[in-house]
């Protein structure tokens, strides 16, 4: 090996080492453009077109991310996923094509290009929102935050950090429009959702609740008293499923726009922790 190639090798190695901490494409405007296509193909399903968040994935236009504090962490998360969440490791969702390192950096360039530097100030009063959540709003009858509240609906401790403000408002105003994702089974392509089940057992007892899980022969249901029923479908007198959420629709007569803003501000203040 000649001295010249030695020098080239060291420089190359140094470049790789730097690349692990910083996006090697950070100064290439074309990288963000290329990353947009990759993002649409690989990420937009959950994070929405424009990275503004979808029904499943958080808004990535916020400068402050919950799991990634720099480019290197973002690279790791895209490569390896986030255990315990729906965020898969690169190439493991079974449908798409795994991305190369370069393509991941392109995506990071794109996400950075979409970020809104000044974080939108939550307009609501989070202290009042907390009062409503655990008080007159009755939210905590079914939802938990920080270990307090009910179990029938999804735990909302982290939701303010992973959903857009618009999505949170829509979920309060129109809970049936997009049912929340429930139990995430790694074996299933589409996890169970919070569908409403009404069943009548062989001895005539009516059970109404949300599905915790279901297959063709069994269903696991929680009712509003948080009782879990393990039912075999062929032993039921009747079994009906509905995509009408058990959560009541909070229209403006129940909660004003200001009150909804306050609750959302509370959820965002908790979720951003």
């Amino acid at each position, binding site marked *: 090996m000649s001295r010249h190639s030695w020098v080239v090798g060291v420089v190359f190695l140094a470049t790789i080492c730097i690349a692990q901490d910083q996006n090697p494409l950070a100064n290439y405007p074309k990288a963000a453009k290329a990353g*947009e296509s990759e993002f649409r193909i690989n990420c937009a*399903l959950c994070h929405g077109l424009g990275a503004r968040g979808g029904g499943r994935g958080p808004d990535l236009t916020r400068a402050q991310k919950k799991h990634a504090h720099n480019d290197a962490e973002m690279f790791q998360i895209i490569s390896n996923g986030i255990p315990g969440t729906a965020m898969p490791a690169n190439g493991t969702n079974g449908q798409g094509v795994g991305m190369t390192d370069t*393509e991941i950096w392109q995506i990071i360039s794109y996400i950075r290009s979409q970020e809104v530097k000044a974080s939108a100030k939550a307009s609501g009063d989070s202290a009042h929102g907390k009062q409503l959540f655990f008080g007159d709003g009755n939210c905590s009858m079914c939802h938990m935050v920080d270990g307090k509240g009910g179990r029938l609906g999804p735990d909302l401790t982290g939701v303010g950090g992973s959903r857009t403000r618009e999505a949170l408002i829509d979920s309060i105003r129109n809970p049936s429009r997009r049912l929340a994702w429930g139990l995430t089974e790694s074996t299933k392509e589409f996890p169970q959702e919070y569908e409403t089940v009404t069943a009548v057992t062989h001895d005539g007892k009516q059970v109404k609740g949300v599905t915790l899980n279901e*297959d*063709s022969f069994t269903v696991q249901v929680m009712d509003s008293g948080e009782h879990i029923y393990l039912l075999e479908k062929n032993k039921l007198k009747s079994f009906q499923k509905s995509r009408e959420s058990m959560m009541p629709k909070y229209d403006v007569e129940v909660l004003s726009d200001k009150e909804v803003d306050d609750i959302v501000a509370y959820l965002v203040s908790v979720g951003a922790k």
Partner: protein
Amino acid sequence: MRGVSTPAMIYRTLGLSVLSGCSRRSQRFKLYAVIFCALSTSQAQVTADRLLNSAKEPQNWLTYSGDYSGRRFSALDQIKIDNAHTIVAKWVYQTGATGKFETTPLVVDGILYASGPDNRAFALDARTGRPIWMYQRQVPPDIRPCCGRVNRGVAILGDKVFFGTLDAHVIALDAKTGAVRWDATAADYRTGHSFTVAPLAVKNLIIIGISGGEYGVRGFIDAYDADTGERKWRFYTVPGPGEPGHDTWESDSWKVGGAPAWNTGTYDPATNQIFWPTGNPAPSNRGEGRAGDNLYSNSLLALNADIGKLNWYFQFTKHDEHDWDATQVPILIDTNGKKLIAQADRNGYFYVIDRTNGKLISATPYGKTTWSDSKDSDGRPVANKTASPTLEGHTVCPGALGTTNYMPPAYDPQTELFYVTARDQCDIFSTAPQPYEAGHAFYGSAYFPSEEAKPYLGFLKAIDPATGEVKQKFQHTSPTWSGVLSTAGGLVFTGDAEGNFIAFDAASLKPQWHFQMGGAVYAGPMAYAVDGKEYVAIAAGSAIYAFGLP
């Protein structure tokens, strides 16, 4: 350095140790030796004649779809409607693999051969699930399989087992030891070429099709000499300059035109033709830049088995922009003196074709479709102009995963019904232009499950090929990726996404029995018998399960 192969891990069972001593001439055990040696000779000596006459040995499952017709029908009838409710699990074999397990095992004379994720192949005692040998080829870190590090099965011929690898090699293994007998490189995996398909053994040839439609490969179907590994022919599924069909591609788009061949075809010995389906043109979801019909993407090809010459073709979806690979197993059906071939296509239509000439007889939707409002003079559904993806995105049914996909269907000659796993799901198709770059994903579009279409529905459907009508259906809790088996016991078997293996009455599609296997099913079921006892087997999660009567 590419293609480094690890030594085969060989587990010798007591049985094979006994067989290995057959050359000794011990007077005392001479009689035993004769019996064992006779057994060992018959084991895994799968002649081309045996493959042709597989109907004579229903206890064995000799090829991916059970026989050359592709009908995935077992003539075994010990397990039947009357006793299906008593079926029990007989054994489970854990591979330790991760990822989707798409294999259909073969069984020859009491030994089960299968492939698994990450370049695995193995042989088991089909009565107990105990391993005989296991082979795994090192997977290069930079392979680019489109949709998981999967494999759908092996082929067997003579004393060798054949399978294709994720790094685009075709490997012949010794059926008794798992040792590599030959290793042929078909293509460069770094450009997105891979094998996931179960090969088809015909005469002395191992026929296999390439994957890589999401990487802009130029698709092909290869035939290798089973003895030597020498490539005997290659049929490029995208015609080159001067070849018929080349003018169906805009400028140089043919070079990266896709049309892979990643599911196992069928064979008609009477005409010595193989029928092999092909996949999407590349980029898969963007037609701009590849104006034309894009032959022979999304087509059924009838090839002379000896030389790979094209006799006829039928293109299901011209100039596809929705990733509707036509890579479904085409099934040969002989009825009322007619020689037909039927394919439940990913684009949502069930096609019946005269296999003597490739002429379409009928095309009938068997699931939710919105892409075609008209048919051409041949009766082929034609895509609406409005079905193309747009930048803003709009909804088309079926979605990119299709009404069905690779999961193998079945045809039952007793009920005369075609059984297929089906899905109703619509997607929003939105363009995302990408330049071609070797070894990089080449989609040209994004697609998202359409919220309005929720919940996505999954079915087992029974189609009457005479009319195209869906006669019966069973709705799963969610869409499944399981294939279907039909048996002479009047049963149809399939698996579901929730991990159940289910036996249905083939006539009514009413469930008769089920078993929770604890892992989603992506594989095709099969049936075999050993010592006069019938088994039904399927892969689920990372294991193979075998079931039988108590």
